[in-house]
């Protein structure tokens, strides 16, 4: 007979997302039945969100170390060395479920949470990015969700004063029931002043700082670990509301405290707030903790220990201080008008003991919470391999200019100015390139220097759906390419792995395929994973999202005077493509927009070429020979050329060789990988071509800058004015009614 404590029955255990096997482990480790508080704590610590129980077995495949890696996955964020005693700290995280339920607050608190992960480690946040996926533009919820999410991201980021410098936005019916809101934060620190969750020792005071604890988001972590059904919207916990003003004060106060020598360990309170932060610090330090719950700053009356331990109230941190230094923290946090309270101390018992109103309400060993968290080798199968589609097998359209217009004004390609206009991109006075600028990655100067960070987020879910392994490779390769195209040295990535229900073998197959593909690309490109996040169960009524392993890449531009964008081309410049064009059309934007089909295999990513081509392009940028550079991705050469033409306000005359075995639409719209479009003055172009020949790099002259249109072989004209109007017009047309109504 299974054992239950008073007031607990099988259903209550099940409601906590704990299955029979897991419950048996708890009984075994405790030697008795857990009470409600203890059950709640196990429930959140063993939730998918906190324990990574379905994904852990595979995440180990990622390369996570390297010459520049100071801290890989396992801490609040990843840390890389950018020279001169400086470190860059970054991470990406999902806030998908909350954003679907309450888009403004869900997205806002997503930004708040990822910022805390970064400043917890001692970094001043300097940039935010956001990768968004919404349902079909004409789906009844889409406008409302887009309006709310964008306002929420802006509302939070703008107020805390960290520029939101870039991101990506996709629309696909596969996200109708589950949108994705992935936010990335990037910060800067001194390499000798980085703070960790590890490092606490017994006998140290535990200090709570930030906002008071309310009943917000109790069981948020378990919600993020379950799929939606039609009733989810009713069952939702109290939504967490963010207060960016408090966050701003918290950043300043924490950085002030970090400038003193008072901290032993520090951890933000994210999902499962007080529970996960205290357990993680205890576990990493190999110690025990004792908390006096009466001393936790509370926003509401009569809060129980269960509620306090599971609350996801925002803008809170837990600091383990060096003994006797509590007053240092008090003085700083009081100056910033934030709550600060000593709520307990670390012990040598290895146990988590909670006392409330004079009674011990929880007494459990820490180790099993972390170490014995379930880890599943979930069964999976790989999807069937799809046949490649080449342009030769696809009908040739009659007017390429009209096709280009259609592609450039399609939902995923159209300008996202409606979104990024709502983000403060310039605060902190170091943004050298953001969403508005013709640059494949955002560029943020390292304050007071002439070097800069290049930052990008990338993923092509339709490739991942067609072929998880190649799609996973492609996501990493595209991020690497986008950094390279600015002249940066790519250094490392963070990721946010968004998938459906891992208990379905097909979904688990997508997950494993993507992870393995990403791992291979990371290894080949020397582009390790230093932090990340997994979001599973993005599924409604059995319909899963397309596999979306979003990649956030960071690189370094050592000298800001040697970089490239795609707006510098002018009349007479020669256009060249580095890389081989075969006319790959499987799972392409062209097929989807023009033919209304999404079939075919994803384009293959040749990682050796990827590396060789990227290194070549970067070398040419640094040699100062390139006036404009753009990687080729969605929509192929023609769309990249259109971007370049719009940004440079110069037409482009493309030339297709009628004798080649790549048909014109394959040449223009094929999505072969490892390619870049470059523009250069004639003399420079000659030198570039010579270098390419010498290094055995594929290079092809594809056209000439000039005129007021994009054209091919003197025909197929598309006037830039018309192109610009369509490209810029799509999103405002979609959002206008909501824009009027939004708060």
């Amino acid at each position, binding site marked *: 007979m299974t054992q239950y404590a008073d007031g607990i029955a099988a259903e209550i255990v099940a409601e906590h997302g704990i299955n029979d096997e897991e419950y048996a482990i708890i009984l075994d480790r405790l030697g008795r039945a857990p009470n409600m508080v203890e059950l709640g704590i196990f429930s959140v610590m063993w939730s998918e969100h906190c324990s990574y129980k379905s994904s852990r077995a595979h995440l180990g495949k990622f390369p996570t170390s390297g010459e520049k890696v100071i801290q890989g996955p396992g801490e609040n964020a990843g840390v890389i060395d950018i020279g001169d005693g400086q470190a860059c700290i970054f991470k990406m995280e999902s806030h998908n479920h909350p954003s679907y*339920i*309450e888009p*403004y*607050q869900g997205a806002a608190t997503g930004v708040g949470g990822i910022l805390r992960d970064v400043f917890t480690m001692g970094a001043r946040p300097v940039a935010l990015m956001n990768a968004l996926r919404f349902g079909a533009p004409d789906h009844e919820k889409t406008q409302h969700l887009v309006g709310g999410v964008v306002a929420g991201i802006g509302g939070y980021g703008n107020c805390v004063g960290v520029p939101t410098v870039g991101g990506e936005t996709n629309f696909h019916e596969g996200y109708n029931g589950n949108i994705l809101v992935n936010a990335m934060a990037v910060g800067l620190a001194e390499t000798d002043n980085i703070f960790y969750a590890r490092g606490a020792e017994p006998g140290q005071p535990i200090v709570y700082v930030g*906002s008071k604890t*309310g*009943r*917000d988001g109790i069981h948020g972590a378990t919600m993020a670990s379950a799929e939606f059904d039609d009733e989810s919207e009713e069952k*939702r916990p*109290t*939504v*967490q*509301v963010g*207060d960016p*003003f*408090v966050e701003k004060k918290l950043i300043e106060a924490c950085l002030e405290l970090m400038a003193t020598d008072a901290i032993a360990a520090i951890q933000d309170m994210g999902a499962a707030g007080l529970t996960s932060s205290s357990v993680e610090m205890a576990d990493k330090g190999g110690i025990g903790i004792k908390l006096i719950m009466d001393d936790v700053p509370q*926003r*509401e009356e009569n809060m129980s220990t269960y509620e306090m331990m599971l609350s996801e*109230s*925002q803008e809170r941190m837990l600091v383990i201080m060096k003994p006797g230094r509590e007053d240092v923290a008090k003085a700083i946090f009081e100056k910033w*008008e934030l709550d600060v309270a000593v709520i307990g101390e670390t012990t040598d018992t290895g146990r988590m003991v909670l006392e409330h109103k004079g009674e011990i309400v929880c007494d459990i060993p820490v180790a099993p919470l972390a170490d014995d968290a379930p880890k599943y080798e979930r069964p999976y199968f790989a999807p069937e391999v799809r046949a490649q589609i080449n342009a030769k097998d696809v009908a040739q359209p009659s007017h390429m200019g009209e096709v280009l217009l259609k592609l450039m004004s399609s939902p995923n390609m159209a300008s996202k100015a409606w979104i990024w206009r709502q983000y403060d991109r310039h605060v902190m006075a170091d943004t050298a390139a953001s969403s508005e600028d013709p640059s494949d990655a955002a560029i943020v100067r390292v304050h007071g220097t002439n070097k800069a960070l290049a930052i990008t987020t990338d993923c092509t879910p339709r490739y991942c759906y067609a072929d998880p392994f190649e799609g996973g490779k492609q996501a990493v390769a595209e991020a690497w390419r986008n950094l390279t195209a600015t002249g940066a040295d790519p250094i490392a990535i963070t990721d946010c792995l968004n998938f459906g229900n891992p208990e379905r073998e097909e979904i688990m197959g997508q997950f494993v395929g993507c992870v393995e593909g990403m791992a291979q690309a990371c290894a080949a490109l020397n582009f390790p994973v230093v932090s990340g996040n997994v979001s599973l169960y993005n599924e409604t009524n059995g319909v899963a999202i397309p596999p979306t392993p979003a990649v956030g890449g960071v690189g370094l531009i050592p000298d800001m005077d040697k970089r490239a964008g795609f707006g510098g081309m002018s009349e007479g410049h020669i256009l060249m493509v580095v890389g081989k064009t075969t006319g790959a059309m499987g799972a392409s934007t062209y097929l989807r927009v023009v033919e209304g089909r999404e079939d075919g295999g994803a384009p293959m990513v040749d990682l050796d070429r990827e590396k060789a081509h990227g290194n070549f392009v970067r070398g040419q940028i640094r040699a100062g020979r390139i006036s404009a550079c753009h990687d080729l991705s969605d929509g192929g050469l023609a769309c990249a050329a259109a971007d370049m033409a719009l940004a440079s306000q110069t037409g482009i005359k493309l030339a297709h060789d009628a004798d080649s075995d790549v048909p014109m639409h394959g040449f223009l719209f094929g999505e072969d990988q490892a390619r870049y479009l470059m523009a250069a003055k004639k003399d420079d172009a000659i030198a570039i071509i010579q270098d390419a020949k010498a290094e055995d790099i594929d290079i092809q002259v594809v056209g000439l800058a000039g005129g007021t249109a994009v054209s091919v072989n003197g025909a197929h004209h598309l006037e830039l004015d018309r192109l610009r109007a369509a490209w810029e017009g799509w999103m405002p047309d979609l959002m206008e009614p909501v824009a009027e*109504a939004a708060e």
Partner: protein
Amino acid sequence: MKAKIHVYLKPGVLDPQGAAVAGALHNMGYEEVTAARQGKLIELDLTGDDADAAKARVDEMCQKLLSNPVIESYSIDIA
């Protein structure tokens, strides 16, 4: 006819505005203020003269647009 709609945050939902207002009033010496909450007031001018019918319609508007049911509640006065 006029409809007056009050939109409040539901109890338990963090109200940073209200907290900030209370804090500022305190700093200015108004110590009698123990808490503050901030909500929205929306006034609509309506055609027609059937108050009950109007109320039902306004209720619909509140659910569909004027309030956010996830975090807010509302009340309606027709006059």
